[in-house]
């Protein structure tokens, strides 16, 4: 049976995430509506402007986000228990983001061949590999394997770097 009473206090963690997400989506739909309002419009006879589809989408998103908020606040549903993000996960995400960012930024300077073994080795270390021989062998094989296939088989040039 549908219970029309705020459930946030009864099952705080599970509903909290959905409530926050629905509010984020409502704010996002307002922001998207603001951007849509400022779109350059060309008025041609018998045509629909560039803003037609975005307006349609923003209305739907706002409505569905409001529905999700309502459902999270007032309805008891047999949903999965919460989705907590652990500290390990957060640190993993941050670490991978930084690593990929640095890899891409440094690629222009150092090039694919020099940087990729280090990138692979660090990733292996993060993934739990502690045998340095295994790390070195895999890092070198992966780098040269990718380089060979992309450059020689598929004819895709990989960045050479500025310092070479």
């Amino acid at each position, binding site marked *: 049976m549908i219970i029309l009473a705020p459930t946030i206090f009864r099952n705080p963690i599970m509903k909290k995430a959905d409530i926050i997400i629905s509010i984020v989506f409502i704010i996002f739909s307002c922001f998207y509506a603001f951007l849509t309002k400022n779109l350059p419009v060309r008025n041609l006879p018998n*045509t629909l402007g560039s803003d037609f589809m975005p307006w349609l989408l923003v209305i739907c998103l706002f409505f569905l986000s409001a529905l999700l908020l309502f459902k999270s606040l007032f309805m008891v549903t047999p949903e999965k228990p919460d989705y907590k993000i652990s500290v390990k*996960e957060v640190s993993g995400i941050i670490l991978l983001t930084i690593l990929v960012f640095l890899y891409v930024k440094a*690629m222009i300077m150092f090039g694919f061949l020099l940087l990729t073994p280090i990138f692979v080795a660090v990733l292996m270390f993060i993934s739990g590999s502690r045998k340095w021989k295994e790390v070195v062998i895999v890092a070198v094989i992966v780098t040269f394997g990718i380089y060979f296939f992309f450059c020689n088989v*598929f004819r895709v040039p990989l960045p050479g770097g500025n310092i070479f």
Partner: protein
Amino acid sequence: MSGTVTAALVDVLQIQNLFASAVGVVFGLFIGSTPGLTISLGMVLLLPITFKLSAVTSICLLLALYASGMTGGSISAILLNIPGTPSASATAIDGYEMAKKGRAGEALGIAVASSFFGGIFGLACLASISPFIAKVALKFGAPELFALVLLGITLICSFGQESVIKGLIAGLLGLIIMTVGLDPMMGTPRFTFGIVDLQAGISFLPAMIGLFAIPQILVGIAGDVPVIPEYNSKITGVLPKIRDLTKLIKAMLVGSSVGTGIGAIPGAGGPIAVFLSYDYARRVSKNSSKFGNGEPEGVAAPESANNAVAGGALIPMLTLGIPGDPITAILLAALMIQGLVPGPLLFQQTPQFVYSVFWAFLVANIMNLCLTFSTIKLWVRILKVPERILLPIITSLCVVGTYALRLSFFDTGVMFCFGLLGYFMKKHGFPIVPMLLAIILGPSLEEHLRISLIISQGDPTIFITHPISLIFVIISIFSFTSPLITPAMKTRLRNILRIGAST
């Protein structure tokens, strides 16, 4: 017509295409048999490579991966009770029981043979049904096409999702993402913020790679993946006897029919098909009481079903341009990369390519049968490759693959952003597939919608005055309202029955 069919066969039998099929089978078996790696992930990793290949070679590679990935999933399901792919879940029930009784070789043999049977059954249905559907679909105008695309997206958003609202929000986000870039009809820039790279819109390839691969890498790095046990027993008697296989024909037919039927419904997918086929096979079997305790029919039915799903899922993808599952969505993207637009026009404009797809699927299934039987012991060893080695390889391939698309690291950034988005979506119960499908079909949806409204001079009733379009609209509305209405109706009905019984 026979000339076109023969030309397509000759094309598929070219050495480079046979080689691509073999590579696809080997890669698919690796992906399928490794728990944690999905066929979708394997496909997106190969997508950047298809840029440099011809359309037929690309389809040979990807279809072979699709077919063998489904088979590969059964190896870890049977030996370790860990399905390599979600579609191998039902195989684990009886397959693992057989392995525990020392019949691992027999179970693997049945799985491979049933996969072949299911694949060929699915192909036969695909080849016989799709030309007729395509012929009917040729009569579709803009309103019908809009309603059809809408139906595809809403079915995926609502079918089998935990929350329909979240599924629809995910689909809407995908459509919103696709509004970035130049307006397809007027050429007006939308939401580009002055960034030149955004003018061409967000390419669906980096988005796809990010959505499928990065969440898996992040989960692996976070270390929440269970440790995979090792299988050390000897495997013998893999090649099944014809006499034993004939006893399983009924189960295979049930599995293949259910698999093809379910596969053809957008959004239903392999996991539903395998459990349904397992259940049906159990009901019609003489040995129904032995199901769950190592019954070979319990392996044959789901294994033939999961390979038949491939043929079924290709029917709406090729004829209507509506993918049946995430794998066919990636296949659709692969064809779009090659400048081919799946749908009824594909059958009219490039019939040779369509026949090439059929032949490629047949070659993929034959190669899958031969290579799997001859190398099965190798794949058992592959199960031991640790994640600490796999994850860095996948990450490097994702970065390099997205860079190779346009020789730009902008796409790598897009890929990573989508990866993070996909990770958080998964964590919070938002399905990824609706977003992916909306990203692929979004431009087509907008185009057909706007053309329809221009034809009707802004009158939206055009979608309900055209009978076919009306049918699609009704099914669309039903698909996302039924999960909301059904539980409430069930509760009400239960209450009425309870009151009736008490009075």
